[in-house]
C-alpha cells in the first residue's frame, strides 16, 4: 500500500435493524396503487369524454387521444389489481419493515415541513431550518456544526441563484426585512 492511502470508515448507528417486523406486503401496496390508478383513469376518462372524444370535421377532438389513453391505463390497472390479488410471490415480499418506515418518515416528514415553511417563510429560511434541524435531531451532529453547515449552504445557494444567476426564489418576511 502506498502512503497516499486514506482509510475511510463511516458508521450508521441508526441503521434499520434487519429483523424488524413488516408493516405491509408488496401485494397490498400493489393492489392499492392499482385501485388509485384505476380511479384516476376513470376520472380523467370521464373528463375527456365531456371535453369531446369523438371526431369532428377537422379531425379528432381534444379529448380523443387522452380518452383512449385513459382506457388503456384503466385496463392495465384493472389487470394489475387482479394480478396483485392472485400473486403469491408479491404476498411474500415485504414492502417496508417498521424500522425502515421509521427512517423513511424521518426524512419525509421534515421534507413536508420544509415545503410548508417555504410557502410562508421563503425558501432560504426554510432551507436553513431544514438542514440545521435535520443534522442536529436526525443525524445527532453537534449543534455548532449543524448551524454552521446550514448557514454556509443556504448563503451559498442565495449567492449562486439569487445574485449570480438571477434565478429568483420564493422569499418571506426575513428577506423583506433585509431589503431583498
Amino acid at each position, binding site marked *: 500500500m502506498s502512503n497516499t492511502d486514506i482509510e475511510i470508515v463511516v458508521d450508521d448507528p441508526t441503521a434499520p435493524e434487519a429483523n424488524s417486523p413488516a408493516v405491509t406486503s408488496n401485494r397490498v401496496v400493489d393492489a392499492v*396503487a392499482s385501485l388509485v390508478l384505476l380511479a384516476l383513469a376513470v376520472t380523467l376518462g370521464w373528463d375527456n369524454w365531456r371535453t369531446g372524444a369523438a371526431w369532428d370535421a377537422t379531425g379528432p377532438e381534444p379529448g380523443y*387521444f387522452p380518452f383512449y389513453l*385513459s382506457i388503456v391505463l384503466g385496463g392495465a390497472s384493472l389487470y394489475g389489481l387482479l*394480478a396483485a390479488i392472485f400473486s403469491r410471490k408479491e404476498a411474500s415480499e415485504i414492502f417496508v419493515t417498521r424500522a425502515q418506515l421509521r427512517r423513511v418518515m424521518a426524512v419525509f416528514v421534515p421534507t413536508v415541513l420544509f415545503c410548508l415553511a417555504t410557502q410562508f417563510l421563503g425558501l432560504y429560511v426554510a432551507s436553513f431550518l431544514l438542514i440545521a434541524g435535520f443534522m442536529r435531531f436526525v443525524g445527532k451532529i453537534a449543534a455548532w456544526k449543524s448551524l454552521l453547515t446550514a448557514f454556509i449552504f443556504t448563503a451559498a445557494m442565495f449567492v449562486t441563484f439569487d445574485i449570480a444567476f438571477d434565478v429568483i426564489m420564493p422569499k418571506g418576511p426575513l428577506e423583506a426585512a433585509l431589503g431583498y
Partner: protein
Amino acid sequence: MEAFGLLLHGFAVLLTWKTLLLMMVGLVLGIFVGVLPGLGGPNGVAILLPLTFTMDPTSAIVMLSCIYWGALFGGAITSILFNIPGEAWSVATTFDGYPMAQQGRAAEALTAAFTSSFIGSLVAVLLITFLAPMISSFALKFGPPEFFAVYLLTFCSFVGLGREAKHKTVISMSLGLLLAGIGMDTVSGQLRMTFGSTELLRGINFLVAVIGLFGISEILLTMEERLALRGHAAGISLRVVLSVWRDLPKYWVTLARSSFIGCWLGITPGGAIAASFMGYNLAKRFAKDQDSFGKGRIEGVFAPETAAHASGTSALLPMLALGIPGSGTAAILLGGLMVWGLNPGPLLFVEHKDFVWGLIASMYLGNVVGLVLVLTTVPIFASILRVPFAAVAPMIVVSCAIGAYAIQNAMFDIWLMLGFGVVGYVFKKIGIPLAPFTLALVLGNRAEDAFRLSMIGSGGDMKVFWSNGLVGSITTLAIILLFWPLIDKALSGATRRLRPAKA
C-alpha cells in the same frame, strides 16, 4: 467529409476559457453526484438544470453533458473502493473491481474502469459524429405520420422488450402520456383535465416530475438501507496508469465487444444497466478460465464499464437525430433543450449547427478532461463519502426544491415535486418502471400532435400509417415489437413441435 469540418468548427466554438471552465465545473459536480449515495446521473442533471437557465444554450448543454459524464465516472469509484455501486449500471463493476481493491490493486482497477469508460464513450461519440447527421438528413423527409410511427416504435419497444411485467410498463407509459396532456390543448386551445384548477393550466412540467421521481424518491429509498461503509481510498500513480495502458491491447476483443453491445443497447431503449451486465456476462462466457471472474480479474472491470459508457453516450444519438431520447438522462437533456427554446429533432442539425456540433465536440473534450480529472483526484472524491448522510440528505432536498421552483417560478411545483417523490418511491418498490413514464411525459405532446396532424392530413383514415413503404414498415415493426413476447413464445413453441417430427 462534411462532418469532420463541422466537428472542427464545434471545437473552435468550445475552446474558450469560459467553456472549458464550465466543463470542469460540470465534471466535478457530476463526479460528486455519482459518488454520493442517493443521487445519480438523471437526478444530478435534473437538479442542476436550473443553474443553466440563464446561460446560452451551448454553454448550458456543455455543462449538463459534463455533469452526465462525471456521474458516469463517479459511479465506478464507489463500486471499486467500497463495493457500493453509486449507480445501477456500476453493479457489474463491483464483481471484479472490489476483489481487486481488496487485493491492494485498487489503483489498477480504477485506472481500468476510467480508461474503459473513456474508450466506450469514444466509440459511441464516433458513432454519433458520423451517424447522427445521416439519420437526421434522412429524417428531414419525415412527415407527421412517419414521426408518429417512430414514437409508436419507441413506446412499443419499451413494452415488448422491457424486462418488467408488461402491464406495469403499460401503466407507466399511459400515465405519462395522460399527464403530458393536462392543460391547454396545443391544437384547439381548449382546456383538458384541469378540473377548474388554475395551477393545472400550465400543465405538469416534465422536469418537476423528474426531480420528484428521481431526486426525492431516491433519498427515501436510500434511507431504508444501511449506510455504513469501510474501505481505502487509493491514489493513482502514473506508473500504474502506464502499466495498465500497456496491457490494454491484449484486451481489445473484450473492449470491442462491450463497445458494440453498449452502442446497440443505448440506441434501442435497453439502457446502460442491461449493457453493463451483458458486457460482463459475455466477457465471462468467452474467457478461457471462467472461474477467475469474480475474484479480481481486470477484464471483469473493462467489460461492464466499456459497455455502460458506450450505452450512456449513444443514448444521445436518437435524441439528437430524431428527438427521441434513448435513456432517462437523455430525456432530461431533451427537456432542457426545450426550455432553451430549441426543438430537438432533425431540424436541429440544420437550424442550430453551432449548437449540435458544439455538443458533439464537448463529448470528445469532456471525456478527455474527465479522464485526466478522475485519475488525478480519486482520493479527494472518495473522502466525500465521509460526509454524513444526515448532512447530505437535507441539502439534496433543498436543491430539488430550488430546481423545481426555478422552472416556472411556481410554489405549486414544489408540492407537485413532493407528490411525484412519493409516487416514485412506491412505483420503484412495486416494480413499475420509471423510464417509460419519463419518456412518455416528455414525448407525449409531440406524439399526440403528430397523430392529430396525420389524421387531419388523411381525413381521419388510419391507413395513413401504411400509406408508403417507410411509414408502413416502421408501424408494422412497432406492432411486432409490442407483441414480441407472444410471437417469441409462439415461434419457440413451433420449433419445439417441429423438432421431434424431424428426429
